[in-house]
């Protein structure tokens, strides 16, 4: 079956611009996670959704970052006024329920110039 998909695979934007990153989880998975992976580092937790609601957004670095999952399936990570330090690979994962195995997408590589 289809795995977790993320679009775009690569995004280059100028400092100060707004970007949206999309995650399409595995069908039927109720839990969805966003992570950020900087060069040479492991993934860093950003936010977790259970259904439509953000159950834990403690990993979002500041109020420029926001994520939604309006229908409990696809999720969008939104970054306002991008900064060069936001450059990283943004990973999405989903699981059948919370505390179950997480399946990761290929990531979106964001480069802020």
């Amino acid at each position, binding site marked *: 079956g289809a795995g977790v998909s993320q679009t775009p695979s690569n995004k280059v934007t100028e400092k100060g611009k707004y970007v949206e990153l999309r995650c399409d989880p595995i069908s039927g998975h109720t839990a969805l996670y966003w992570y950020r992976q900087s060069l040479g580092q492991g993934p860093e*937790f950003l936010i*977790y959704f259970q259904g439509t609601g953000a159950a834990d957004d403690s990993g979002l670095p500041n109020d420029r970052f926001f994520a939604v999952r309006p229908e409990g399936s696809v999720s969008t990570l939104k970054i306002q006024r991008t900064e060069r330090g936001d450059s990283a690979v943004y990973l999405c994962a989903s699981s059948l329920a919370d505390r179950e195995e997480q399946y990761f997408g290929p*990531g979106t590589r964001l480069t802020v110039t």
Partner: protein
Amino acid sequence: AQSVTQLDSQVPVFEEAPVELRCNYSSSVSVYLFWYVQYPNQGLQLLLKYLSGSTLVKGINGFEAEFNKSQTSFHLRKPSVHISDTAEYFCAVRAYNDMRFGAGTRLTVKP
């Protein structure tokens, strides 16, 4: 909160040699432990996981890991590596819905 330390950032090894990738963790609560592999330009793939029960866990591609509670370790091992095992390996620890990853170990298998 829990944390993970991967003790080696890079591990070079010759083909068919054994390998051990080291992982230590800290947590004040019970945790689940995982090893993921990341091939270039691909997402993370689960190698194996420890949830409970036997402390020796077998995973895909011939990898295994042993949970040692007293040493708070979860080292990954393979008795004989292949060129195709060249990748980045991440140890992770999860308490409730909070998953923390180590910085990764780059395994390079040379012919």
